[in-house]
């Protein structure tokens, strides 16, 4: 797994839908264009929700990986 440099991290582990998306939105709002946010989540729904959110908002989902039930997403703010 490649380590992508991130400007901020958001821990959504243990949270269920729609909290990971809502918290991701808030975190991204506080960042600069081009910066990367790393989100970790255990909600299995986030696997499909995160790409949908990114597609709709125009932010880029750079990578998604999973290890031991923890999903890691890297998002670049548009």
């Amino acid at each position: 797994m490649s380590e992508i440099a991130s400007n901020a991290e958001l821990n959504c582990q243990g949270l269920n839908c729609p909290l990971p998306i809502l918290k991701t939105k808030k975190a991204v709002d506080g960042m600069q264009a081009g910066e990367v946010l790393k989100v970790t989540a255990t909600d299995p729904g986030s696997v499909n929700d995160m790409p949908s959110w990114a597609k709709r908002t125009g932010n880029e989902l750079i990578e998604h990986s999973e290890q031991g039930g923890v999903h890691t997403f890297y998002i670049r703010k548009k």
Partner: protein
Amino acid sequence: MAEPKKLAIIASQGTLDWAYPPFILASSAAAMDMEAVIFFTFYGLPLLKKEIDAKVSPHSNPAMPMKMPFGSKEFQNFNWPIPNFVSGNVPGFDSMATMLMKETFKKKGVATVEQLRGMCQEFGVRFIACQMTMEVFGFEKEEFIDGVEYGGAAMFLEYAADANISLFI
């Protein structure tokens, strides 16, 4: 930027289970850069009160699973077969079921209704209270949270006419 997509929701139910969908969908829509309006009418109106005291009623809900929020995973996943004469006649059964649901949701990391409502407001979701229902049920504006708009069917429809998604919940 292109015109944002619009979501229009009518929230007509005031039980704890039905309180969730309007706030989940509206907050998620706002997080996805959409505009969202929730029109609260009939039994949905109390969801605007400062303190939400929504309950679940398993008696009228044959499909509702009765689960325990504690114990082993097997025990938690067990669906308790509660006969109708129990759910309908035992005093305090709704309160107990409400407590169990709240506890299960908390354990599973689901936000409270109040939390989701707060995030809706933070994200700019508009809340419209049905003026007619207020008159009929005797609600006062002072009972409701700040930032609520007041209007009727026409006010909702004016917005919903241009909405991409319209839901009656």
